[in-house]
């Protein structure tokens, strides 16, 4: 089982709360009316699609199925699939994260990096907000400064943690000063951390900014139309949009919140809804056969992992972690959990996030690593050597989607096959989410599952969270050598040179297994027969993907 990353990679992943994982996995929920599914005798085959056919013309409107309602359209809180997939079409960032996971100028026409501590952004002129007012440097300062305001409590605070000041330094120029070299800051400006909103709107809406009544007033190809609480959000084409390349092809797009995976599948199959991201895994085979549209696969940055959250228990011994990984039938998990649409991996990043990496770095990060093939005998031996046979592990799961059950059962079976006992604890989805933010929720917990995606084109995003003392280093794993490598990499500006350090970090994580990498799966998308023009990629979180959709 060698790592077979699906595509060229870059990027780091941002953490995935359980609900996010729900989106990805939500696929599976029981599909009562799923009709005959071919038994998967042959392995699933798929191709990544970079771009679908260009539209033949414009559309009046199309509808899109969202697995959940956004919590908020305030960019400071837009942290999950549901929020960002809508927001990406309404609000724009300083940089633009493209479907191929590269960064290009966005609302900043250009940027300079005169000293390791400063980033200077030249703001694009001729851009207007949806209310018609022009974009100014003051709007940029106001928008970015919110992340530093504790009263806002921004979800993107970690991107700004090294920021000393954000100042207007010219008519259309903003300078960000850091407390030290930080190669990651600018890379994060292509995501929601870099979104720019009108300063006047922020002041006027106050606490209601971004909620269903307050709405937003940004610069994207679509403007905020109507938010029918609990049901739908409608966006309207903005006629004053600055970029002719991304002017919306549809006058309107309506996002419909359909929490029920079965309902979403039915709506897509019947043509009631035109499309949707993150298709329930159970529905993928059905939709592949559907004549209502196309089932597509796109670039992803997520790796599905088991987080080791207690290194004082049996899993504190690296041999036991290795043994558990070797006892996991990861191909079987891919087949059961995502219907075969995935590849097993031994590392925590996908190649897609390694933008600008050197060939040598790619070779060492993905080639020169330890592989953990399915080998029960070797695994048992390791457990015996470690002297932990018979000890008990606690695995926490939640009824979020049926694939969660697959991960739980498979992990328990693997651990028991090598002489460990496993206690599976099922908690509510909310309590599960708390595992990611509340250390007390992790007490006595050895393992839980996550799908972790990166939001910037740099794998360092992944490894920086595994440093000693980091918020998302759930098992409090600590490796001084690893910390030193990552800290050094963070200060390196040149992407190629940085990637070589990052590759070292990846090798250490691959040996030490602070988290157990299971597999990576492509982003899934269904596009109905009325529409075309979308670029299937996890960039749908930050790139105005709906703008390119028009009539087939």
């Amino acid at each position, binding site marked *: 089982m060698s790592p077979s990353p699906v595509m060229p990679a870059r990027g780091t992943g941002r953490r995935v709360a359980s609900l996010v994982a729900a989106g990805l996995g939500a696929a599976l929920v029981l599909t009562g009316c799923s009709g005959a599914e071919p038994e998967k005798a042959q392995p699933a085959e798929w191709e990544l699609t970079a771009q679908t056919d260009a539209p033949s013309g414009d559309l009046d409107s199309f509808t899109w199925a969202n697995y959940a309602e956004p919590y908020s359209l305030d960019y400071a809180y837009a942290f999950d699939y549901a929020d960002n997939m809508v927001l990406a079409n309404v609000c724009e960032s300083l940089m633009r994260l493209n479907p191929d996971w590269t960064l290009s100028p966005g609302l900043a026409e250009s940027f300079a990096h005169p000293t390791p501590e400063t980033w200077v952004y030249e703001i694009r002129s001729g851009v207007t907000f949806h209310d018609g007012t022009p974009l100014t440097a003051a709007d940029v300062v106001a928008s970015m400064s919110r992340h530093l305001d504790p009263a806002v*409590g921004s979800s993107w605070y970690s991107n700004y943690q090294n920021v000393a000041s954000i100042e207007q330094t010219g008519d259309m120029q903003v300078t960000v000063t850091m407390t030290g070299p930080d190669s990651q800051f600018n890379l994060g400006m292509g995501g929601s951390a870099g979104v720019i909103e009108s300063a006047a709107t922020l002041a006027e809406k106050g606490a209601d900014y971004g909620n269903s009544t307050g709405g937003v007033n940004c610069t994207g190809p679509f403007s905020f139309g109507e938010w029918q609480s609990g049901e739908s959000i409608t966006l309207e084409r903005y006629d004053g949009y600055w970029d002719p390349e991304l002017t919306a092809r549809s006058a309107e797009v309506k996002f419909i919140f359909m929490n029920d995976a079965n309902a979403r599948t039915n709506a897509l199959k019947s043509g009631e809804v035109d499309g949707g991201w993150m298709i329930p895994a159970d529905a993928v085979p059905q939709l592949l056969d559907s004549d209502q549209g196309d089932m597509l696969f796109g670039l992803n940055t997520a790796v599905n992992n088991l987080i080791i959250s207690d290194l004082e228990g049996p899993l504190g011994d690296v041999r036991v972690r290795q043994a558990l990984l070797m006892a996991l039938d990861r191909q079987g998990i891919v087949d059961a959990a995502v219907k075969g649409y995935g590849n097993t991996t031994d590392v925590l990043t996908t190649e897609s996030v390694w933008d600008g990496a050197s060939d040598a770095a790619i070779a060492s990060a993905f080639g020169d690593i330890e592989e953990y093939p399915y080998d029960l005998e070797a695994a048992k031996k390791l457990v015996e050597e470690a002297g932990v046979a018979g000890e008990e592990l606690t695995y926490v799961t939640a009824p979020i989607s049926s694939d969660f059950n697959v991960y739980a059962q498979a992990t328990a079976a693997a651990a028991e096959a090598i002489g460990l006992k496993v206690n599976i604890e099922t908690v509510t989805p909310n309590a599960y989410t708390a595992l990611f933010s509340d250390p007390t929720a992790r007490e006595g917990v050895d393992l839980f599952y996550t799908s972790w995606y990166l939001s910037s084109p740099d794998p360092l995003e992944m490894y920086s969270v595994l440093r000693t003392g980091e918020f998302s280093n759930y098992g409090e794993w600590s490796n001084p050598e690893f910390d030193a490598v990552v800290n050094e990499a963070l200060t390196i500006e040149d992407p190629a040179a940085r990637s070589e350090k990052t590759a070292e970090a990846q090798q250490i994580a691959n040996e030490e297994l602070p988290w157990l990498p299971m597999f990576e799966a492509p982003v899934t998308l269904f596009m109905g027969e009325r529409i075309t023009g979308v670029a299937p990629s996890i960039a749908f979180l930050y790139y105005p993907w709906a703008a390119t959709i028009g009539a087939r």
Partner: protein
Amino acid sequence: MTTLRRVAGKLGALLLTLFLASLLVFFSRFLVPGDPVSFLLRGRKPSPEAVAQVTAQYGLDLPPWQQYLNWLTGVLQGDFGRSLQYRQDVSQVIGDRLPVTLGLVIMAGTMIAVVGLTAGIVASLNRGKVLDRAVLIGLTVLGAIPSFVGSIVLIAIFAVQLGWFPSFGSGEGFFDTIYHLVLPSIALAIVFVVLVGKVTRSSMVEQLGREHVEVATSRGLKRGTVIRRHVFRNSIGPILTVSGVLVAGLLVASSIVEAAFGLAGIGSLLVASVDRLDFPVVQAIVLLIVTAFVVVNAIIDVLEPWIDPRAAAGAGAR
């Protein structure tokens, strides 16, 4: 005078009930494991100052009794606080969704009244005959269908197969909304029809056997008149009592139906809010349901003697 005193007494009991309910509703949240702030963070890395500020913004740093007083003061002024999940006033969040649930409850209530009363009356007037048995069996079968099963079956047949009705959403505008709510209302009504049907039947049967009915019949009054004036009017007490219980039942059961049909009502909101530790919303909805229940029952208590004079006489004698 006695009427006035009785109404005042009811009002006092009502306020006391609501007060006790408010205590229960508010403090029960401290029994639920989990920290609302950790929900707000949803796994994100916060700055320590942000955690402190956010905690303070929602008043979560105060002692519980202080939180209760602030909450109660707000509630009395119509302010239910801010939703943690939607970052919006709770009254706004609930106000957006209340029309859907009310529409659903009103439509289902109408169906229950019409179908339940008709079935009960028809059965009672044909007591022991085939029609009576058919109605009873029919009601029993319906009563065995839980709302979620009913929802799935209705969607499968009338939305997916026949395509007569939409399978999700609550529609826009008056007629479209009614059209969207037909299937959900039926799913919601099914279980409760049984209750009303059976109570109506037994209450009517009891009255039909009463002496005064026989007297009226023997005096040569028309059967229709006897049934309207003597039987039905006297049977209405138990039916009203059951209807009072129904209101709370419908509001609570709506959560299942709303979830199945993708309706944004307060039922599905309640379920989602419980799971997300969105306490201000949960507290407001529970208080709303308790209030609706208590108020409707108080109104029925007050109305009953007015409809059925015997009840007034009984109350006076007590």
